[in-house]
């Protein structure tokens, strides 16, 4: 209840003296709270992995054979200083879209691609320019490309969208990023499986549905989570492709 020693505050009247000191202290505390939390939370954000668009390399143009896994790959036959023959590139359009439609008619044929490199460790993905400037059939007979079958594997790790994983967005993986990754994958950006242990010398691989289909709907519940699954592994140039057996997908605890 009110008592005489308790100064009484009325909003539209001047604040009584003793209360003024208390309120000054409270104000300082409130401001200090914002100052400290802002500084602490801001300066303890996790560092994204070394990955991103390499605008510094400039636009790259190379030629090779298009393969549909169904996600299109380019097996480089005529490269340049940065991208050597024997290299395999995953391809994407600008934004959250793959190049499936654009590559459709070019399966097994020579094509020239042009765009910006996305790099995380090795160079594995190119974001193509729009239209025929980014992807067009090339003159010449396509050479025979070898696909090496590596048998059935059980792998543990995480399904990501290959574009954000390669640094198109930083951060670009994990559960807080899941909705964004789903959107990319729905747009046919190539999905990538990041394995906890290197498989045949690589800790990531392009992942597809069974029998050359797209990522199955069932996989969307597992994006960004630690899972294990089985599938048929193959090597196309310097990239691994895993055709998953949808029924073997399961969560791993921890």
């Amino acid at each position, binding site marked *: *209840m*009110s*008592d005489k020693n*308790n*100064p*009484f*505050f*009325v*909003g*539209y*009247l001047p*604040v009584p003296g003793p*209360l003024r000191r*208390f*309120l000054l202290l*409270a*104000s300082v505390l*409130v*401001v200090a*709270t*914002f*100052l400290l*939390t*802002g*500084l*602490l*939370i*801001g*300066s*303890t*954000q*996790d*560092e*994204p*992995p070394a*990955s*991103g668009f390499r605008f510094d390399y400039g636009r790259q143009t190379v030629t090779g054979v298009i393969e549909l896994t169904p996600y299109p790959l380019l097996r480089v036959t005529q490269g340049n200083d940065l991208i050597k023959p024997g290299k395999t590139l995953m391809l994407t359009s*600008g*934004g*959250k*879209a793959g190049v499936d439609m654009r590559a459709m008619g070019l399966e097994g044929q020579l094509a020239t691609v042009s765009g910006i490199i996305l790099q995380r460790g090795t160079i594995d993905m190119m974001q193509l320019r729009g239209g025929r400037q980014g992807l067009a059939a090339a003159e010449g007979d396509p050479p025979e490309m070898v696909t090496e079958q590596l048998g059935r594997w059980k792998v543990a790790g995480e399904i990501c969208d290959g574009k954000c994983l390669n*640094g198109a*967005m*930083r*951060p670009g993986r*994990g*559960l*807080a*990023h*899941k*909705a*964004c990754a*789903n*959107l990319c994958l*729905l747009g046919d950006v190539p999905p990538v499986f990041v394995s906890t242990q290197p498989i045949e010398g690589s800790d990531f691989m392009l992942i597809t549905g069974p029998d050359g289909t797209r990522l199955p709907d069932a996989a*969307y*519940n*597992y994006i*960004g*989570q630690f899972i294990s699954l089985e599938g048929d592994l193959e090597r196309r140039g310097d990239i691994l492709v895993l055709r998953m057996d949808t029924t073997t997908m399961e969560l791993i605890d921890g």
Partner: protein
Amino acid sequence: MSVKYIPVQWNRNKWLYDAVMLVGVVLFLWLFIFVSPELLSHEFPINPQVHNARAFGACAFVMLTVILCIGPLARIDRRFLPLLYNRRHFGVMTVFVAITHASYILNWYFAFSSSDKYEALLFANTSYGQLAGFPFEIFGVFALLCLAVLAATSHDFWMKFLTPPVWKRIHSLIYFAYLAVVAHVSLGILQDQQNHTFTVIFIGGALAVAGLHAYAAMLDWRGGDERGADIDGWIDICDAGDIREGFAKIKILPSGDRVAVFRQDGRLSAISNACAHQNGPLGEGRVIDCLVTCPWHGFQYDVTNGRSPAPFTEMVPTYNIRLNGAGVQVHRDANPPGTYVEPVQIEVTA
């Protein structure tokens, strides 16, 4: 005490209040957005859009936490009451910060696809059946909708229009919004972090809100207003001598309503304890310039008839009052708001 509704009735204390809060928020955002990237000096930095989204999200969380701590603090120590005074402006500020957070997210994570970004927000992730990977954004959407409703109805016009009890009930949505934010963060960013500084601050903030509310509720429960006994419709309040000049005693009537019995110039009057503005506890206020003054926002009433002085039109119910020996009694039935009741003179005792 408003005759007509203007957007905000400003006074010096409101300016000061808003200035302090604004300084806090601006400092937070400035340190987070401009200073911390330098401190982090990542080789491949977080995208500015995500960094900014995090800054505004975390800021909205801290703001909500501070707002929700003020209520119980004011109940625990009345010197905090002035912080309650202009809390609504702070709440409205929070909505703008939260909207900025959401738009950074929408224009980044949910942009660049062939779908509409608002639709994408709803369909991109539909793993509702699991905790890890749950579409935590939906809790953010819910919280933001609640905050928007609260901000839109924060003006006194809506309180009058909806009546204070309904308004109060709507505004307890703030607690659901806060719970939703807790879920939003727990199922979202906390699942991904390596550095747990934010986790500690986040849990600390949420525990402070919960702990202060529990403590204030316990104090209320222990030292709350008492119920008066009903004798033929008349309720014993206290001894007349117990009420100090300019102050009141509060009792709970059989109806559950509270009555405040004030002493002014040696005479006693009884009015409803609930302020016509926002149900503030009039009995915890005091008489200033012959008028009972509400401790929350300073609305004033003539204690003999429960009316605000002209030109204001607010009214609270009055109660019939009588002396029974040394004791004061109030009749359990309220008079219509604004009814004049003759005050009773306290007999001067030695």
